């Protein structure tokens, strides 16, 4: 097992226990797959993003084939070798300028899950494309409390100019519900916890639910009517803004329905330990990332959501990593100019992020589900939209895929793809595995081969 230098949060250990096997198994088959003879566990997708590229020399395994000795940055993933694919050669072409000039950081984040070219603007007419997680959420999010979960450690940008003429919306988001609406991320573990698990116990909530729910519905009915009357008076752009309002109201209504349906189930009340609530955003960045990983794992485990994105930092972040002895800014360092010392520091930052990824995987692997673990039913992508931060290249991106997607992926290998294979091909193959097949996503050109073994595609 891996050694963690920082103590694990006791509350989450307690919480994990509360939500362990009996709770899940009791409800899963009945609720999710009523009528299905074969018991199938839900499959989940998550996408973790790190900014400014990677020190690729310490990332890419020496040869294709079974993983053996992992490169330095990936060392923390040793215990998960059997759950891991290292994918080399994938490209996000839409992060390239393609005539739009500088702005690789903004484009890297904006295109990462969309495979679309971000429209270059400081503000007016922000536009990129729908991201793979949101496609998945739309397809499999029905009947799930939270169609998708968006997490991140950086709240927003503190200063105006994010990247060479691109609005900060592009660098701060990877999840796009529509081509013009990014899904803002939650950064406060306390808020995430309360959103997922509520303020009080479930029993308490259920009691007041029906009246409260009726009232909330009437409030939502009221404002929807209000918005409808208003819409008639507005111009096209304003109407589009208001569309977001309608969509948001709709989603909340669905959630209320969902909560109501769940409240009717007699075996729901797990009850959450009071000490389970995180206090807020921890000062320590590692702790912050870990808490969010814990919550993501819990949300998957309790089947509160099946789709998640998590930006460990915003693209172009110049965060200092003094907690691991690297006090320079990350972005400044990433322009290492071949300087060995700087490259070593970049390696340390990359390694530090991978440790957090390992933590997430350990959480998902600890959680038993059927004969296997939650991780067995997941597909967790980890990567960056930039290859080498110094070159700002968008080919041969650092991409990992963890989990077995219910046995439809054969992990434990390093796969090499032909030059310029679209990253979106991977996403298409992932969507296949959650029964959300689609023919085209962004700049995809087809499915990604080899995921299920050297010869078979699926």
């Amino acid at each position, binding site marked *: 097992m891996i050694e963690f230098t920082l103590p694990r949060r006791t509350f989450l250990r307690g919480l994990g226990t509360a939500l362990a096997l009996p709770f899940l198994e009791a409800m899963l088959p009945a609720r999710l797959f009523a009528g299905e003879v074969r018991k199938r566990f839900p499959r989940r997708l998550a996408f973790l993003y790190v900014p400014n590229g990677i020190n690729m020399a310490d990332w890419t395994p020496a040869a294709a084939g079974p993983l053996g000795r992992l490169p330095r940055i990936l060392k923390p993933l040793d215990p998960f070798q059997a759950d891991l694919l290292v994918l080399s050669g994938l490209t996000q072409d839409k992060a390239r300028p393609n005539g739009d000039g500088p702005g690789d950081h903004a484009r890297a984040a904006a295109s990462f899950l969309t495979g679309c070219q971000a429209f270059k603007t400081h503000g007016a007419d922000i536009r990129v494309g729908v991201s793979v997680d949101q496609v998945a959420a739309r397809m499999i999010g029905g009947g799930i409390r939270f169609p998708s979960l968006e997490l991140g450690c950086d709240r927003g940008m503190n200063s105006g100019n994010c990247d060479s003429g691109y609005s900060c919306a592009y660098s701060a988001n990877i999840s796009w519900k529509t081509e013009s609406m990014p899904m803002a991320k939650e950064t406060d573990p306390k808020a995430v916890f309360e959103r997922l698990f509520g303020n009080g116990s479930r029993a308490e909530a259920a009691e007041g639910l029906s009246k409260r729910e009726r009232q909330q519905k009437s409030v939502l009915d009221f404002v929807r009517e209000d918005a409808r009357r208003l819409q008639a008076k507005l111009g096209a752009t304003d109407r589009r803004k208001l569309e977001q309002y309608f969509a948001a109201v709709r989603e909340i209504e669905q959630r209320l329905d969902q909560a109501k349906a769940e409240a009717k189930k007699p075996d729901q009340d797990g009850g959450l330990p009071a000490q389970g609530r995180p206090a807020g955003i921890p000062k320590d960045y590692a702790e912050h990332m870990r808490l969010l990983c814990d919550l993501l794992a819990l949300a998957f485990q309790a089947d509160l959501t099946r789709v998640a994105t998590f930006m460990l930092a915003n693209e172009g972040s110049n965060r200092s990593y003094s907690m691991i002895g690297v006090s320079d800014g990350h972005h400044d360092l990433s*322009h290492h100019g071949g300087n060995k010392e700087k490259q070593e520091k970049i390696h340390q930052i990359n390694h530090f992020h991978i440790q957090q990824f390992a933590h997430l995987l350990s959480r998902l692997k600890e959680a038993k589900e059927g004969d296997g673990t939650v991780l067995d039913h997941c597909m967790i992508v980890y990567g960056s939209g930039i290859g080498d931060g110094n070159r700002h290249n968008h080919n041969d991106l650092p991409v990992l895929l963890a989990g077995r997607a219910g046995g439809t992926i054969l992990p434990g290998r390093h796969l090499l793809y032909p030059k310029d294979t679209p990253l979106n091909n991977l996403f298409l193959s992932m969507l296949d595995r959650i029964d959300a097949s689609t023919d085209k996503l962004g700049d995809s050109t087809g499915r990604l081969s080899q995921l299920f073994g050297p010869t078979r595609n699926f």
Partner: protein
Amino acid sequence: MEFYKFLGPWIFFCVCLSPTLLAGDGGPSRFDSDIVPILQKNCTVCHGGAKKKAGLALDAFKGDVAVVKDLRIWEKVLKRLRAREMPPEERPRLSGAEFQTLTQWIEAGLAQFDCNANKDPGRVTLRRLNRIEFKNTIRDLLGLECQLADEFPADDIGYGFDNIGDVMSLPPILMEKYLAAAEKLAAEALKKGSASAQRILACQSGEADKKACAREILGRLAERAFRRPVTEEEVGELARLAELAASEGESFEKGIELALEAVLVSPRFLFRIEVDPDPADPDLVHPINEWELATRLSYFLWSSMPDEELFAQARAETLRRNLEAQVARMLKDPKSGALVENFSGQWLGTRALKTFTPDRTLFPEFDEELRAAMRQETELFFEAVLREDRSLLDFIDADFTFANDRLARLYGIPGVQGSEFRRVPLPPEAQRGGVLTQASVLAVTSNPTRTSPVKRGKWVLEQILGAPPPPPPGEVPELSEKAEAVQSGSLRQRMEAHRANPSCAVCHLEMDAIGFGFENFNAVGAWRTRDGKFPIDPAGTLPGGRSFKGPAELKAILKGNSEAFSRCLAEKMLTYALGRGLEYYDKCHIDQIVAALARNSHRFSSLILGIVKTDAFQMRRGERGSK
């Protein structure tokens, strides 16, 4: 919106190199002889003929009037050229001469824009209240502190600010948080026996007539919350909602609470709505109504809703008439602290102080107290310029600042004891004065381990002179960080070597000269005379030949360019005030503000008044291509 800036003395591509390119009276057209060949060689392969990439056909224009007639198109062309986006990287670049000829020809055409013939106030997209505005509005509407707003997701930034209608979105998670906040706030506001409950529930119709009472209460609430008069029908809808609760056996108060909750998540509360007679007619320019004007004013100066006085003026339709007096009153109100905090923090970039993390071993003096002090100095200084109605040029250099013991120690100012901030005079030997030498600005333009002359130079060009350098071309080699290079000299010497590359030199010449002018200030803003073992050399020469020996002389040069600075600040603040990016036609509004500033010794109040008097602030029109 940057074209006319380049006509000033601060341009990169020296004007003296080529004559005015637009044909004078009766002169031969330069279009056919100079411009068409450049377009044919570099552009029309894609943007012309049958291809017309991006819908642009550059072979369809005739004569020098092309720019004047199709301003919007040419302005876009100019932007793409300046940003080095065109021609795309796989095609040959424009030569220096081609670039100059083409951009100056477009500029000259744009400069002919006739403000009298082309009145265009622009059109602001529906603005959602941002997090700060939401909090302030709740404070002023209900007298409550909304802590839940701290959990709202961050508002995305565009054009340098977080209040831009086009940029702000409403994802489901935010709506969810609005609902949760509304529920909590409505309950708090109507807590039995509380002062706010008594205020809200006050009813002249007499307690007996519950129906009339509910309508009265809700009408009053909704008018303030929606920042405009409400119709009978709207009040009726709200009253019905309140009755619904009553029909379920809830109390009268509970009904009001539910209706208030609905008000707080209504789009009419969450968005600042301005209505047009015909939203699809771009030619129908009309003044916004007095309620809308009151709202624009209050969110500009207070980041909050209008107060009773503004509402009263709007109701009586006297606000436009009393604009100057109202603006003066609003600036005096402590609520204008929001302008200090929100505008200055974003204009100067000092919001980034929050996440500034200098290397603690290199800068052991830096701690949370100093961080807070840096921020406070800048806010107090900005506030003094505002409250004392001082000249905007004080931002560039001034003979006073504010300090407490920690900051005074960093600055080497003797005799300041205690953590309280106080005004301190700055004699010339203090080497300080104005925002450029404040630790906050010096820090946020540094790296965690060292200063960044490039960032500082770029910051001055962007935030003070309004002439942002184009982004670096993609193929430029990085500054060498190899060990042998680092050993070879100070940062300055290494960067000068890097600048020998002509494609870098064109921008870095100015950027670096300015940045190095501030090298006497280290990465946390303390004065120094050496960079490691190398002495600091703060002298420099700007393009155009002006030389300076150090930061004081550099500031004097900058201060002498009051036109560029006024223009820059006017642009930033107009963007902030309107909540939209500026367009080519806003040149007229900026001209007007800058002229007023020059007439009024650059007083702060004349900037604010100049902005609120523009058509951009007071009028709007329908949307282009809306139908």
